[in-house]
């Protein structure tokens, strides 16, 4: 993700790809999560979807706050996952695996986001 932004663009395609992925999955999680809440189920998915969506929007705008927000979402996810299933690692596959992969991808965006923040002054 260390692609240089072209003139007139705050972040490169790598960050944008991640950003739009977060927006899309955030929307799906939020809408499905709202449905689950309506059915009397867990609130996690709705809230996490909202956080993921917002992180994606901020990432697309080259905002480091997108990363900070996602760190909160990820931390909350880990805490919730542990609360629900503890050390049952197979049960943690859907809860911990892909959110952590997204975290790692976001961390690789730090240089690009820093440049974007600097460019913004």
């Amino acid at each position, binding site marked *: 993700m260390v692609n240089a932004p072209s003139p007139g663009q705050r972040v490169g395609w790598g960050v944008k790809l991640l950003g739009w992925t977060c927006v899309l*999955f955030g929307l*799906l*999680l939020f809408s*499905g*999560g709202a*449905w*689950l809440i309506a*059915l*009397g*189920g*867990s609130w996690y*998915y709705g809230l*996490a979807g909202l956080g993921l969506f917002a992180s994606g929007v901020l990432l697309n705008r080259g905002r480091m706050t997108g990363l900070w927000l996602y760190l909160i979402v990820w931390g909350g996810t880990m805490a919730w996952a542990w609360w*629900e*299933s503890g050390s*049952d690692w*197979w*049960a943690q*596959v*859907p*809860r911990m*695996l*892909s*959110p952590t992969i997204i975290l790692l991808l976001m961390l690789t965006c730090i240089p690009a986001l820093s440049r974007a923040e600097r460019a913004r002054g």
Partner: protein
Amino acid sequence: MIRALLLPALLCAPLTLPAGPGHAEGSADDDVRPAAMPVNVGADWPYYGGGDLSQRFSPLSQITPDNVAGLERAFVYHTGDLPPGETAGKYAPETTPLKIGDSLVLCSAMNILISIDAASGEENWRYDPQVPREAIPYGATCRGVAAYADPDRAEGEACKMRVIGTTLDARLIAVDFATGAPCTDFGRGGQVDLWEGIGEKIPAFYAVTAAPTVVRGVIVTGAQVKDGQAEDAPSGVVRGFDAVTGALAWAWDLAAPEEMRNGPPAGKTYTRGTPNMWTTAAADQARGIVYLPLGNSAVDYYGSNRSEAENTYATSLVALDATTGEELWHFQTVRRDLWDYDLGSQPTLLDYMGQPAVLLPSKQGDLFILNRETGAPLSPVGELTDLPQGEIEPGFVADSQPVSLWATLRKPPLTEKRMWGFTPLDQLYCRIRFRQAVYEGYLTPPSTENYIQYPGYIGGSDWGSVAVDPTRGLLIANYNDIPNLNRLVPRAEADAEGMRPPDARSGGRGQPQVGAPYGAKTNAGWRSGLTDLPCSQPPYGGITAIDLQSGEPVWDVPLGTARRSGPFGIPSRLPFEIGTPNNGGAVVTASGLIFIGAAADNLFRAIDTETGETLWTDALPAGGQANPITYEVDGKQYVLISAGGHHAMETGTSDAIIAYRLPD
């Protein structure tokens, strides 16, 4: 004389039997016809369940927890019975051979009887009963055969020792153990047609897939009747045939036992649609009692128009006098079964608290121990009350059910957080489906909405049954832990979808339950529509050792690695135990080993009986969905499994029978 010395020793030592070749698992009285096989489990494996107690226990001890890591393939035998084009995807051989003398005898998926050399795997003979392809019911399965030694025939005479096979097109076959030649004095030219008295012959509707049981010279068999087709289905009658002549010894028709005892009167059939016995019966050779694990009525998920007789006997263990076919007692495990909790496991005989006992596993997971002579429970049985009644037929659904207070393989009810997936998204999908489904815990009655049945209909314990290690006082049970997502389909919708029972010209489609106001749809294992992964989290199956005295688990571990599992059917190759669905039982040895395939990872494994730790594995060419055996030839212990695979378990197809032994 030896018997007279042995018997008191056995009686004084409940749960402990002398280990070592030469000791009987059980023993017969002298004043009656002898046991079906004058051979004990040890060097031989003379019965489907090992010895005549069906404990799946061998006194052999050459292969031990210390040396099992060195186990090698001794031979791989190919039956040659592989599915041609149109039957591909319908094979599940599930075969367990017998070993007597120097030979193994077995049946292939399409019921070819085969004898092979037990040390080399070389074929001695084969007899092909020419079963037509259209006879294949749910799957081409032949779990085993029985052997019988005719006491009135001289040693060396043809058919002195005979192999009794069953077929998918419902025949009993008797061939000579040494040559495979038909025993011409048995039935007509060595065959008995089990369609007699059943009614209109509709291929695949009525098929025998289980090994028969021979007790006091009587072959006892039921048949598999295709589930959920129609109330007007072939009868569940269980019949006994003379093992020498093939003549009907008795018939037990639960709805008309007296009228049908010697076969139906002219112009009539055995009572149709009654609960059947599709699995293998257990027998007390000494007492002359046969124990029939019965399934449910022909229509599984609707019950209001079942007869009183069906309501009395469905999903019960029934003890019959093996000579007369008269009922001695019955024990019902589910009242008014609406969950297809057929008793699929072969029961196991043992001595328990100083009494002759029969151990009964079940699909709902409960394990019961009953007195063999009276049926009185020896393990505590409780009562679940105020059960949900549902909206379909609240007047029919039982409001209380028996439950084992001694031991069960059933896990706590499902909750939303036990929904699973590969990512939060597909997990969310399953959580929504969970919240949408009708679920009031164990024994939620059927509904026209999606409803959850947990445990699902593959168990708990299925046909693989359980094993008992009498030297350690342990019960070894592998089990499934997966829900079904089911739905009743109103008749108009079922018709619109083309659900129909099979007829003489064509096979059926779906589970129309003709005669009831609803058809049924069952999603076994509750696969997610998104990824094909199960909606519930692993483990989906495990194996446990239960202390026979206390009923407490000594250990309980997942069975099966994730190597062949993954989203969209892609194998993950992960070598970690996830606990897969499993089908097929275990064999336990006196040396403290459990051998089992069963899991969907296609591994055959040796497990330490004391700890549950896997000590050795071998990757099979297809799933080991068959009960393994162990035996001895020329002082060498062998372990053998049929690696035939299973269509519904998605574990491939193979015709390999694989034997293992330690290197010289």
